[in-house]
């Protein structure tokens, strides 16, 4: 039962094969059993979950069920939750309870979802392995010596290990897609502005976007139906009518034009990953799609541009964590400067401090033009590359990550090696486009994902293609033995 998709669970709940309370209790039991080893959750909320489940059962009995009524979900610990800790992977917020709910949390709750708890993550979403969390690394359920990816590593591991039906995540440079690839699940990063950022703790405001980590593309569409849509509290949230992301899920792929970026299929991508992608492409071709090579000539500039823009924005976004009003404050500060220095010095971890310093430097007088301005120009070039490619193709297919999940500790001694993890995902954030990672094969007993990227607001198309692929393959149904 616990490995079922949201769509399947909704049917089971509707047919009264199980109640939400029973389902919630079963997930809570499994979390109690497996979470000590996996560390996917930093906070569990059993009492709240059971009361929400009882309310959901009552709502269903009253005939007011939505597809999410009674579905147990997990939230990345970057989303503010009223009365429940929101630590964002940091010592800085280890004691922080938000006075309000994030928009995403609020909308899922209104749809009847049950919150099981909050999932582990890289500190302030800065990382690609989940190892920068103040609460310890998450272990990949496929191989507990390996990382689950990051920064939404806890959400990805929880979905893969059946510790929830579906989870929320955020993606600034690949933080939904890369962990989805490493954990063998589906992860969608929506178009920038699709989902409100209200209540989502900011890392890099112009890049951050919330989205689902799920067991299928169909489920991702179901969650998008709930969380996407205009919100007056976020000025960057698109003011467009709500969309039914499930409506397009059964379109044939006949005539679909798929672009393969030359730059993604060249050096740097192992022959095994290439083979897996070629098999996936054959499946899509057999469903009626055609493929052609496209160029993304500035893709190689995406990582350097990102590591100027994201830290620059982060350096300002994280200034509010100063020990004055909430979060960590050092013991016995002697004066204001001492309070600032020690609260931030002790409250933030190394990677966060590194990025604040890089961002502060990039914005400094005399360096702004050379770094920040230049990076913004590259950002426009990268966007133009995609615009040009999408004149000829409907979507772009490539790897999500260069490889499968790596070993814990393998890459965290050299930041640049870690930054290159996101070489295929970062450009998508810089261009503000939607991207989805879905399981495409197995390599040495570990899952590996492929990424589909579409033009702005093409989520329905991406979800349909992913769904058609999943109707014809079973990579997404494989589960680790935990």
């Amino acid at each position, binding site marked *: 039962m616990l490995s079922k998709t949201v769509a399947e669970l909704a049917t089971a709940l509707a047919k009264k094969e199980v109640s939400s309370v029973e389902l919630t209790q079963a997930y809570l039991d499994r979390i109690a059993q497996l979470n000590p080893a996996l560390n996917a959750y930093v906070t569990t909320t059993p009492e709240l979950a059971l009361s929400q489940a009882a309310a959901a059962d009552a709502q269903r009995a009253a005939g007011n069920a939505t597809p999410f009524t009674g579905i147990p979900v997990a939230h990345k610990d970057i*989303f*503010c939750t009223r009365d429940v800790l*929101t630590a*964002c992977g940091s010592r800085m*917020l280890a004691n*922080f309870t*938000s*006075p*309000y709910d*994030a928009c995403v949390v609020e909308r899922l709750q209104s749809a009847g979802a049950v919150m099981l708890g909050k999932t582990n993550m890289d500190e302030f979403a800065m990382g690609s392995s989940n190892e920068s969390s103040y609460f310890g690394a998450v272990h990949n359920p496929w191989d507990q010596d390996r990382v689950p990816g990051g920064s939404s590593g806890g959400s990805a591991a929880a979905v893969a290990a059946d510790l929830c039906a579906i989870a929320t995540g955020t993606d600034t440079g690949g933080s939904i897609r890369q962990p989805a690839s490493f954990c063998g699940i589906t992860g969608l990063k929506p178009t920038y502005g699709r989902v409100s*950022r*209200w*209540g*989502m*703790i*900011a890392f*890099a*405001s*112009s890049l951050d976007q919330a989205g689902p980590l799920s067991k299928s593309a169909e489920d991702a569409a179901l969650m998008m139906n709930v969380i996407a849509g205009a919100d*007056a*509290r*976020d*000025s*960057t949230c698109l003011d467009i009518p709500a969309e039914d992301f499930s409506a397009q899920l059964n379109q044939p792929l006949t005539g679909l034009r798929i672009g393969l970026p030359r730059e993604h299929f060249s050096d740097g991508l192992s022959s095994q990953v290439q083979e897996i992608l070629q098999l996936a492409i054959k499946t899509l071709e057999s469903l009626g799609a055609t493929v052609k090579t496209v160029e993304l000539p500035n893709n190689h500039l995406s990582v350097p541009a990102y590591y100027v823009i994201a830290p*620059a*924005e982060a*350096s*300002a976004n*994280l*200034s*509010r*964590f*100063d020990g*004055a*009003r*909430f979060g960590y404050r050092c013991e016995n500060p002697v004066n*204001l400067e001492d309070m*600032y220095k020690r609260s931030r010095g002790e409250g933030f971890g190394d990677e966060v401090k590194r990025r604040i310093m890089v961002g*502060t430097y990039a*914005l*400094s*007088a005399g360096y*702004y033009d050379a770094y*920040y301005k230049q990076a913004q120009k590259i950002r426009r070039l990268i966007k133009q590359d995609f615009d040009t490619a999408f004149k000829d193709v409907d979507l772009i297919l490539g790897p999500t990550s260069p490889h499968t999940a790596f070993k814990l500790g393998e890459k965290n001694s050299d930041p640049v090696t870690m930054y290159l993890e996101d070489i295929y995902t970062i450009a998508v954030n810089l261009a503000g486009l939607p991207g989805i990672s879905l399981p495409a094969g197995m390599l040495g007993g570990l899952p590996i994902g492929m990424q589909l990227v579409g033009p702005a607001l093409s989520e329905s198309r991406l979800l349909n293609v992913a769904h058609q692929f999943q109707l014809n393959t079973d990579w997404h149904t494989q589960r680790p033995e935990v």
Partner: protein
Amino acid sequence: MTWETVIGLEVHVQLATQSKLFSGSSTRFGAAPNTQASLYDLAMPGTLPVMNEEVLRMAVSFGLAVDAEIGQRSVFDRKNYFYPDLPKGYQISQLDLPTVGRGTLKIQLEDGSEKIIAITRAHIEEDAGKSLHEDFQGMSGIDLNRAGTPLLEIVSDPDLRNAKEAVAYLKKLHSIILYLGISDGNMAQGSMRCDANVSIRKKGDTEFGTRTEIKNVNSFRFVEKAINYEVQRQIEILEDGGRIVQETRLYDSDKDETRSMRSKEVANDYRYFPEPDLLPLVIDDAFIEAVRATLPELPGARCQRFVSQYGLS
């Protein structure tokens, strides 16, 4: 030797909106500390700014009143610095693309002649909160009621040549904002605050001398006294063969003197960059014309009308 004084003024006007620039909190003056501070004003994690359109209307009405260019596309920027009364650790302001561009203000001099003072720009920004240093036994209290109140910072060119001109300019600005109804202009409560940039040079020189900035002078009379004191101070230094240090100075009205505030501090680097949480403000002609239609008759125009209509002089 004859010295010439050069003065430019930066005037912060608190706009008389019901709610704050980027949040729904009330802007009423005098409420109990922190009772008018919303989640956003407290800079709670995850909160975001939403522009108050009334602020834009007021800024544009000021721009029209001083014949200024209205920025069709204005952009907010983050100005970064740490201070407890600045909860986000940055102030949202406008750097390169302010809502109000170059304009002019006509002032009347003592001899009855008129002088045109150029307005460099007027930009929208958030006010900070207040630090309370009394009653906390060695600690400081923070009141964020004022944090996020909308300000219009009106910057003049260095066109003013003595303290009396500066006061005439300020009084003219004051009457315009009152006519427009965009601020109560109460200097004692800080609804209108003035920083004066003052330098001197030898009569006939074309280069400006090194300037000092006198902060937060809160009455017309004090502006005049502070500038006169500062000019005299600078003359004495230069005539003694010294040089002026570029610095911020505070006017002490009790002692009638200016004092160095941040002499040791190196120039602040505010690391401005465009505010990613807000879209650029795009102002179309229809908006500008709608604001123009609401403008009252301004003091200068009314005065002229009275002169021509009733033959007053």
